C-alpha cells in the first residue's frame, strides 16, 4: 500500500496523502517526472528545493488546483478524482503567501466562507468564527473589519483561520509566512506548529527556507528537477548519500554558528 520510497512499518496507519507515480508537464517543460510519496496522519511535511523544482506543483495536486497528467493522488486511500474538485477543496485547508483574502468581505465573512459554502447555519458559523479568531490570537473586534485595515501578520492570521474554518484534517501551505517580517514570521510559524499538534492536523508546507523547514517539520522532502532527491527527518538527511542534500541541510547550522560567533564579538574577516 505504501509508496516505494516509504516502506510502511507494521501497525503504522495508512497514509493520509499518497502520491502514486504522479507526473505533470506544462507544454514541453516537465514539472514533475514520476513522484511517489506517502504522508501519514499527524505528520508535518516540508517540501524544499530551488525555484522550479516542482514543490508547489506537488502541493497543488493534493487539492486539485492542478491536475496530474499521469498517476494519481489518494487521500485516505481514495482517489482525489472521486469527487468534484470544489467538494474536495472544502475539506482541505489552503494557505498561501499572497493570502488572497476577499477584499469586499469582512474578516468574519472571510473566515466563514467555507462553512457558508457547506451550508452551515448562521449561528454555527458565528460561533466558529469567534473560536477561530481566538485560536489565531486576534481580538473579537477584528470580526467586522475589512482586510484593507489589517497588517501583513494579521492578514495571514485571518488566512490561517479561514483555512481551518471547516475543521479540515489536511492543511496545505505554500510559503505561508514568506512575505512577513522575520519576527512575525518566526512567531506565526511556532504558533502554527502548536495548532498543528493541538488539532492533530496533517500539514504539507512548501518553503524555500530550510531553517523554517528544520524548525517546523517532522519530515523534509528535498525536491530537484521534478523528482524527490531525498526524504526523511532533518537528522536523517544530514547523513544522506547526496552531497547537495547534505549541504542544503547543513546550511542552517553553519549560518546559526556564524551568527552566534558574530553576536559574541568575533571579527568579520575571520
Amino acid at each position: 500500500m505504501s509508496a516505494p520510497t516509504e516502506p510502511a512499518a507494521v501497525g503504522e496507519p495508512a497514509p493520509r496523502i499518497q502520491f502514486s507515480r504522479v507526473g505533470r508537464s506544462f507544454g514541453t517543460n516537465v514539472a514533475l517526472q514520476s513522484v511517489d510519496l506517502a504522508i501519514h496522519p499527524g505528520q508535518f511535511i516540508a517540501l524544499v528545493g530551488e525555484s522550479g523544482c516542482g514543490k508547489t506543483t506537488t502541493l497543488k495536486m493534493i487539492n486539485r488546483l492542478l491536475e496530474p497528467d499521469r498517476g494519481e493522488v489518494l487521500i485516505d486511500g481514495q482517489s482525489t478524482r472521486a469527487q468534484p474538485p470544489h467538494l474536495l477543496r472544502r475539506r482541505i485547508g489552503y494557505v498561501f503567501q499572497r493570502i488572497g483574502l476577499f477584499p469586499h468581505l469582512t474578516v468574519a465573512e472571510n473566515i466563514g466562507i467555507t462553512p457558508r459554502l457547506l451550508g452551515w447555519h448562521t449561528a454555527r458559523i458565528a460561533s466558529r468564527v469567534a473560536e477561530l479568531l481566538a485560536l489565531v490570537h486576534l481580538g473579537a473586534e477584528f470580526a467586522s473589519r475589512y482586510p484593507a485595515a489589517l497588517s501583513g501578520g494579521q492578514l495571514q492570521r485571518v488566512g490561517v483561520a479561514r483555512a481551518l474554518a471547516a475543521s479540515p484534517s489536511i492543511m496545505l501551505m505554500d510559503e505561508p509566512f514568506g512575505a512577513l517580517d522575520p519576527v512575525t514570521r518566526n512567531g506565526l510559524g511556532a504558533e502554527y506548529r502548536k495548532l498543528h499538534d493541538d488539532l492533530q492536523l496533517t500539514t504539507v508546507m512548501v518553503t524555500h527556507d530550510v531553517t523554517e523547514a528544520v524548525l517546523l517539520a517532522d519530515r523534509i522532502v528535498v525536491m530537484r528537477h521534478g523528482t524527490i532527491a531525498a526524504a526523511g527527518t532533518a537528522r536523517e538527511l544530514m547523513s544522506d548519500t547526496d552531497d547537495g542534500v547534505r549541504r542544503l541541510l547543513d546550511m542552517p547550522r553553519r549560518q546559526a554558528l556564524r551568527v552566534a560567533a558574530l553576536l559574541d564579538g568575533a571579527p568579520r574577516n575571520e
Partner: protein
Amino acid sequence: MGHLVMNERVAAAWQLLPEYLAEHVLLSAAAMALGLVLSLGLTIAAIRSTAVRWPVLAFASLVQTIPGLALLALFYPLLLAASALATQLVGVGFSALGFLPSLLALTLYSMLPVIRNGVTGVVNLDPAVIEASRAVGMTERQRLWRVELPLAAPMLMAGVRTAAVWVIGAATLSTPVGQTSLGNFIFAGLQIQNWVSVLFGCVSAAALAMLVDSLLGLMENGIARRSRWRVAAGTLVLLSGVVLAAVTRGGAAPATYVIGSKNFSEQFILAELLARKVRAEGGTVGQRSGLGSAIVFEALASGDIDVYVDYSGTIWANVMRRTDVPTRDVILDEMRGWLAREHGIVLLGSLGFENAYALAMRRDRATGLGIESIADLAAHASRLRIGGDLEFFARPEWSAIRDGYGLSFESRREFEPTFMYEAVTSGEVDVISAFTSDGRIAANDLVVLEDPRGVILPYDAIVLVAAKRAADPVLRRALTPLVDAISVALMREANYRVDRDVDKATPAAAAEWLDARILGVQR
C-alpha cells in the same frame, strides 16, 4: 416684439415637454434595462471564454462606429421584414415604426461600455483572490456571483453610467423613425429654424442625462463604499422617474388617427392642418412628425400611420420606380390605381398646389429679358449665371431640364437655400433652382419659369390614406374638403410665415391661418 415671440416659443415648448420627456424617459429606461440584461449575459460569457471575448467586444465596438441615426434607420426595414414574416407565420404583425426600432438600436448602443468595463473589471482582478476563491471550494458560479461580479461592480457601474449618458443623448435621434422624444424639439426646430425649440431640446436632454448620471454616480459610490442607503436612494429616484413617466404617458388619451409628416416646414404645417380637420370632425389625433422621406411611405403602407401628404413625383419616381414623364393627369390616374392595387392605399386627391423643382428669376430681370418660360431662357442662358441648392445639380430634374431645353449657362454655383435666395435678389446670380411652393418666391418677388415641354415631373401635393382607413367616414368627412382647396400662392404664404427670419409663426399657427383662408374660399 421679439421678446414676446421668444416667450411664446418657450411657452409652446414647455407645453410639449411633459409628453416628450415622458416618452424619452420610457424609451431610454427600456433600452437600458434590455441592454443591461444582454450586456451582463455577454460579459459573463466573455469572462469565462477568450474565444467568446474577442467577437463580443469587436461586435460591440463595431456597433459604436455606426452613426446613431443610421443605426436607427437600419432597424426599420429589418423590423418591417420581420413583421411581414410574423404576419405570414402567425397571422399577427407588429409596428416596425417608432418604439421598437428605437429600442433595439439604443439597446445595442448601450452595450459596449457595460461589457468592456465588466470584462476588464473581472479579468484584471487580483489573481490571489481568484486562487483563494477556488481553494476555499467555490464552484465557477459561486466565484462569479460571490467574488468576481461584486469586486467588478464599481467598474461595471461606471460602464452603466457611460451607457446611460450615451443612450439618453442618442434617444433624441429616434424622432425620424417615428418615436416621440426630446429630439422632436430639435428636429422640428432645425427645419423651421426655431432655435428656441432646438436649444430647449438640447438643454432638456442634457439635463436629463446629467441627472441620471449623478444618480447612477451615487449608486456607484454606494457600491464602492458598501453604503446601502446610497444604492437604495439612487435606485428609488430612478424608478420613481420611470413610474412618473409611465403615468404621464398613460394619462394621455390614445390617438385614434395618426398623422405622419416628413421633415420640412410645409409638411409640419399640412400635418397640423389635417389634424385640425380631423379634430373638427370629432377624431382624436396623434402625430408622427419629422419622419424620414424613405420611411414615411412604408409607415403608411404598413398602417403605422393613417394619413399624410406626399408629392406625386416622389411616389412616381422613388416608390413606383418610373422613369417616364407623362402628363399630370396620367400620372395621378396610374398612381391611384397602383397604390390601391399594391398597398390598398387611397389617393384621396390633390390639395391643389405643386411643390416641384423649378427655375426662378427676379421678376424685373425676367421681364427685362422677355423670359417667361425655360424655352425663352435657353436663348439667353450662355450669358446668365445659375445658382442651385446643394443637391440640385445632382438630381434627375436638372439633367432633364438641361437636356430638354439645351441649357448652357455662363457659370454655376451651389448655395445653402437661405443664401441662394439672397444671391438671386442681390443679382449675384440670375437664375436659381427653387421649390414651387417656397414662401420666399413671393417674398422676394421672383417668377417661376414655365415648363412648356413638360420635362419636369409634376409634384402635386396629394393626401394618402392607409388601407385600414380606406372607408373611414371621419377621415373622409374631414379631409375631402381639402381637395383642390389650397392654391400655390396660399401655400407659399403659409410656408413663408414659418420660414421667415423675423416674426416666425409655429407650424400650428400657420395651419390655423391656412385653415381660415380655405374656409374663406369655400364660402
